[in-house]
């Protein structure tokens, strides 16, 4: 006698249609989704750029100035402007999702999504101001 029960299990083949590699071109909302995820590449570039800055600063005043003028060259400037667009895009889409990802309960009632979003934007403003003050103030 087998250890398992006597009947055979019924596993019909799942219906899985093959998706075209270009499925994301079929609708604007799909394309926007892919662009949002592609912002990750520009996040990585921005980190690399900032590390280059750290390296330049460690090497001395001259190399710092050279880094600044290198950043002004058209190719780098264009890359950074594109990255800026995607980084801001990442931030806004991320904050738009925040109310759905963060569910906060106060005294048994759920905080409205608008509050979560607002607190994120507030934090964003604070972070921006702090960084600006830290770097520019003296």
């Amino acid at each position, binding site marked *: 006698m087998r250890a398992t029960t006597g009947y055979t299990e019924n596993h019909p083949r799942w219906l899985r249609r093959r998706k075209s590699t270009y499925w994301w071109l079929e609708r604007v909302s799909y394309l926007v989704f892919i662009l949002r995820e*592609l912002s990750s590449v520009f996040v990585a570039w921005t*980190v690399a750029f900032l590390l280059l800055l750290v390296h330049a600063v460690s090497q001395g005043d001259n190399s710092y100035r050279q880094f600044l003028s290198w950043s002004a060259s058209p190719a780098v400037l264009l890359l950074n402007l594109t990255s800026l667009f995607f980084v801001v895009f990442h931030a806004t889409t991320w904050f738009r999702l925040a109310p759905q990802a963060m569910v906060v309960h106060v005294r048994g009632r759920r905080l409205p999504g608008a509050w979560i979003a607002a607190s994120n934007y507030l934090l964003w403003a604070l972070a921006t101001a702090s960084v600006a003050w830290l770097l520019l103030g003296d």
Partner: protein
Amino acid sequence: MWLLFSAGGVLAALLLPILLVLFGVLFPMGWLSPPSHEHLLSVIGHPLARVFLFAFCALSLVHGAHRFRYTLYDGLQIKHLNEFVNFLCYGGAIVGSAVAAYLLWRVP
């Protein structure tokens, strides 16, 4: 894992825009005068700043790698290259973090 991803996303969303605006556009274009070298050096040389910057870079890189891996998976449907893509994405993030650690350690 998701907490790493989320933390990286939040930090990147909060801090990257202003950093990129300043160092990518405003300072190179001369629209705002850049901080003096000594000031910048004193800011990033501070131990707390180094630790924070390292965590910030590492988390943002992990976030980006994670997202990019799934973009390739979902977008291009290349399931058969899964292991290779994982290795490239997370490997890249780890290498980047190691570079960040090294550079931040070496700030005078």
